[in-house]
């Protein structure tokens, strides 16, 4: 299943947030979206997943939705969005409970997905007992459990400290190499973008427009060998965005 964004614009009242976004995503492709603070990245992701209706334009699903998926478009949130009153297992099962699985199927799915994210030992832990990195692993496990066609990841690593971020980035690369997944990946972090993205969409300041789309053809698992190329690319992206980031940072927030 692919997605096609057609001339998406969005405003909140008088605030124009997105302007004429056209974008495609293809199977097993990771599309990174970068842009300065407040340019509408999260809004765009919400529109893609059907959580918000755009003022103009539409999001189209192309091709068949895979038969075994429970939730074709599945989010991973910056703040993990785990239910604090459920254990790791309970949080994963939340996503499965409404799909009429039998008890044993449910058990099997959950333990499979926990094993894949190396969480098996933590099945009965509550979120408050977990470090940030582990929490996000649980959120990833929950997302994988519904066998999504496309994952929508909104700055999944930016609430983590940078060492944990490194660890999780490695995990995501591993996962993609092993199983391959399709994802929109919103981030502020250009190092993340060049490490994970097949396409990097650069948005302008609000109202967010596509300034450029950068493709990186190096396979994910080979990227460490091309560190220098990526660094240059990252610098190029940063030069493109620096001014706008500065302006966005200095903006006063009105009530």
């Amino acid at each position, binding site marked *: 299943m*692919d*997605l*096609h964004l057609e001339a998406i614009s969005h405003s909140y009242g008088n605030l124009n947030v997105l302007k004429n976004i*056209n*974008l*495609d995503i293809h199977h097993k492709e990771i599309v990174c979206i970068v842009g300065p603070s407040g340019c509408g990245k999260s809004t765009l992701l*919400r529109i*893609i*997943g*059907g*959580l*918000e*209706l755009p003022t103009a334009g*539409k*999001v*189209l*699903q*192309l*091709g*068949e939705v895979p038969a075994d998926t429970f939730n074709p*478009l599945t989010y991973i949130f910056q703040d993990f969005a785990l239910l604090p009153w459920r254990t790791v297992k309970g949080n994963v099962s939340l996503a499965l409970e409404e799909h009429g699985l039998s008890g044993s199927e449910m058990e099997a799915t959950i333990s499979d997905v926990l094993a894949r994210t190396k969480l098996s030992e933590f099945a009965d832990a509550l979120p408050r007992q977990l470090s940030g990195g582990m929490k996000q692993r649980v959120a990833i496990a929950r997302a994988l459990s519904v066998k999504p066609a496309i994952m929508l990841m909104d700055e999944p690593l930016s609430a983590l400290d940078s060492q944990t971020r490194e660890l999780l980035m490695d995990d995501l690369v591993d996962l993609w190499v092993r199983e391959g997944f399709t994802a929109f990946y919103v981030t502020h972090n250009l190092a993340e973008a060049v490490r994970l993205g097949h*396409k990097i969409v650069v948005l302008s300041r609000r109202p967010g427009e*596509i300034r*450029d*789309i*950068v*493709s*990186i*053809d*190096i396979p994910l698992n080979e990227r460490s060998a*091309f560190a220098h*190329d990526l660094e*240059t*690319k990252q610098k190029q992206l940063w030069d493109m965005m620096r001014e706008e980031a500065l302006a966005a940072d200095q903006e006063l927030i009105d009530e």
Partner: protein
Amino acid sequence: MNKAVTNQTSNSIQNNGPDHSSARPVPFRGGGFQPKPIRGVAPFVFIGLIAFWEFGSQTGFISSLVLPAPSEAFQAFRELVESGMLFIHLSASLQRLLIGWICGTTLGIIVGLMIGLSSIARAGLSPLVSAIFPIPKIALLPLFIIWFGIGEGSKVATILFGTFFPTVITTYGGVDNVDRNLIRMGQSFGLSWSSIVRKIIFPGALPAILSGCRISGSIAIILLVAAEMIGAEFGIGAYILLAGSLFATDQLIAGVAILSTMGLSLAWLIGRAEKYFLNWRT
């Protein structure tokens, strides 16, 4: 490197556009769960309810023994206004309310800050507060008469007692919730103890204190009736009590409506105070 990394413009994407034959829009599943107050409904509800009530009374569907018609209550209110007694009752009550509430709140804030700041005060006072708080003031009225007399003393004391304890509790809760990082910051700049209390802890606890005022204000109004049980000739509470003992339900409803209005005005006032003092909150 050029092999590995290439640029595309957004235009080139649109060209190899999708095969629209199997294209279906993504279903919408967001929204909701954010009830917004709809303007204009509140007066409508009130007017509707009162109209229904009046209608019921007029047709005898609601017996006047059970509930007097709103028009009768309004008539009682008009009599109160025209006789000039409204002003006398209101000023008597407001004076008691204000004195009792201001003293109770001030003392409550002081004791609350002490409990919030000192281990000894906390150990000694907080269990006392928890033990005395749940005592209904109305049960103590006979003792209050002995302790504070039957003049203004016992009325003010009833309100003072009623407002003191919740204020203590919310204040020290507020102090406990002040961000410890801010206090540590103050210490790191070498601020004195009193500066930290005045400049960091008190403003930090202010939201809790104001919301405590909301509670203690309602309690003060509720206690007005109890307070004015003791030898009060004038006052809204006394008016309601007399109406109750005469079973003059029209006056009773009028008095209750006055109390309710006082409660709403107070909530509004504290809302304004919060807007003013807490404009720094997001």
